[in-house]
């Protein structure tokens, strides 16, 4: 059986972005708001992030992932958001409608006044980083291992090497220690950590886990089960240095080598994807290049803090509702954002003159001294104590400032430079 359903705002994904988007849409006046989730449970990846460290900005206390999501889900129920779990969105059309499948209702074609994409991101797998050797059991992304240990209740192995120093890898190094495994080391190809500095301190230093910058895994060993890895120091071009190779015995290799926004559906909808962020090109209303499709959270750009994901989700939901009800205020002027000095990626990519804007950005290289993040034409300037690739920075611009710019200004460049 196949049916058409019509709603005001549809949200895809019930992780932190999607749950907040549902609330934002309801609180902005949308009547029928439905969040579609492929899992049986709400909360997305936060349900497996059982360590504390979430919500300091939102709730002024540090919660575990499940506690953080519990509060948001309660709030969403209170706001009258409808959730549809066990429901896979398997296809999206260019008009923004999409197709869902679930065991109770079969296939449905959903037509919404506006859609919010909240699919989050995926981990970069081993295949994407080209490590030679066989493919024995025992090699997992850090997030997969996190799900095994924290939700399914079994250990992936006893002797662990972590490749990459993203936050999930650091958190899992500590988690495996607490579960009785040994962690032989964390190896990071870059000259700086991928994750937050506090996670280096509380997940590695606290347990004397060796942390090797400028190192990578050059080979995996073992036929059926992983028996060890060869690690080597890398040069300035990230090529392994001959003669620095050594064997590290292990039965488990965890990969924490980056996250990729999950945008298969966005592409089907014809939404423009930015080549550097890997997420939809959006404006400060989180509106994509399809005007009835909005996007928020890690599907747009990978954030450090879930608080920002929730805040952006709320904003996307609110704007989607306003769009579906009366339409958003039309931009009378439009400004392209560009990354200048030491800016690797940023979002949103363009600004309308109708809304205040926050631009999130990441630097290419760390600056370990006082520096300054600026937006040109004197729009924004803030002194920072440091700037690191693992930690996002923000630029705030008021709509009024944008409206006052000389008429020939069509571009805003953001920079991070030493003072």
């Amino acid at each position, binding site marked *: 059986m196949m049916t058409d359903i019509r709603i005001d705002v549809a949200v895809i994904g019930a992780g932190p972005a999607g749950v907040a988007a549902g609330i934002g849409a309801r609180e902005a006046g949308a009547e029928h708001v439905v969040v579609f989730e492929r899992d*049986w449970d709400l909360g997305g990846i936060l349900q497996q992030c059982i360590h504390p460290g979430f919500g300091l900005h939102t709730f002024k206390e540090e919660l575990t992932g499940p506690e953080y999501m519990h509060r948001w889900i309660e709030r969403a129920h209170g706001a009258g958001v409808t959730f549809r779990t066990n429901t896979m969105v398997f296809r999206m059309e260019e008009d923004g409608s999409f197709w869902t499948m679930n065991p109770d209702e079969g296939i449905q074609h959903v037509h919404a006044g506006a859609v919010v994409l909240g699919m989050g991101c995926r981990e970069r797998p081993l295949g994407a980083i080209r490590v030679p050797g066989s493919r024995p059991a025992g090699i997992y992304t850090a997030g997969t291992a996190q799900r095994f240990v924290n939700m399914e209740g079994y250990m992936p192995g006893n002797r662990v090497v972590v490749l990459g120093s993203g936050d999930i890898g650091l958190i899992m190094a500590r988690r495996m220690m607490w579960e009785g495994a040994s962690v032989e080391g964390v190896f990071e190809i870059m000259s700086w950590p991928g994750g937050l500095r506090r996670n280096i*301190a509380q997940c590695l230093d606290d347990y004397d886990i060796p942390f090797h910058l400028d190192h990578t895994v050059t080979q995996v060993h073992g036929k059926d089960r992983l028996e060890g890895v060869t690690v080597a120091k890398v040069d300035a071009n990230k090529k392994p240095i001959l003669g620095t190779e050594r064997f590290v015995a292990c039965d488990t290799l965890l990969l924490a080598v980056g996250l990729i926004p999950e945008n298969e559906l966005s592409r089907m909808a014809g939404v423009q994807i930015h080549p550097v962020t890997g997420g939809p090109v959006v404006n400060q209303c989180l509106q994509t290049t399809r005007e009835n499709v909005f996007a928020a959270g890690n599907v747009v750009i990978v954030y450090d803090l879930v608080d920002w994901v929730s805040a952006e989700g709320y904003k996307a939901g609110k704007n989607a509702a306003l769009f579906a009800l009366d339409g958003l205020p039309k931009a009378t002027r439009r400004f392209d954002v560009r990354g200048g000095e030491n800016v690797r990626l940023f979002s949103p990519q363009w600004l309308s003159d109708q809304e205040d804007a926050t631009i999130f950005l990441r630097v290419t290289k760390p600056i370990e001294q006082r520096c300054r993040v600026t937006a040109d034409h004197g729009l924004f300037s803030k002194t920072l104590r440091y700037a690191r690739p693992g930690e996002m920075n923000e630029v705030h611009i008021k709509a009024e400032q944008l409206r006052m710019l000389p008429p020939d200004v069509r571009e805003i460049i953001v920079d991070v430079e030493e003072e």
Partner: protein
Amino acid sequence: MTERETRKFICVSCPVGCMLTVHMEEGRIVKVEGNACMRGEAYAEAEVRNPTRVFASTVKVSGGLLPVVPVRSRSAVPKEKLFDIAREVARVVVEAPVKIGQVVLVDVCGTGVDIVASRSLEAEEKRAG
């Protein structure tokens, strides 16, 4: 002669991760530098006297929608007891349904801190799909 010592910590109270320099005299803190907020001073004090961390793990569930449920120490516990706590928590089995905030272990390892469930979990038969 006054005994002076300088110790360095990365504050883990929030994601900023301030690099703290703690100046000590005769085992007492006289000055904390590098902190962007007051939490840094409290953290430095604790790191010098009695370092503590919040413990988070899982316990087995019988009859639950999932085989394990996440738990945490209600507040921070002494860092040196973390592995003892991990061993004690590993022996706990709770019965579904579990409610968020429910105490699963009272006064873990004599710390005075309870271990509580950090999510709710329904009993197995309710599982959809």
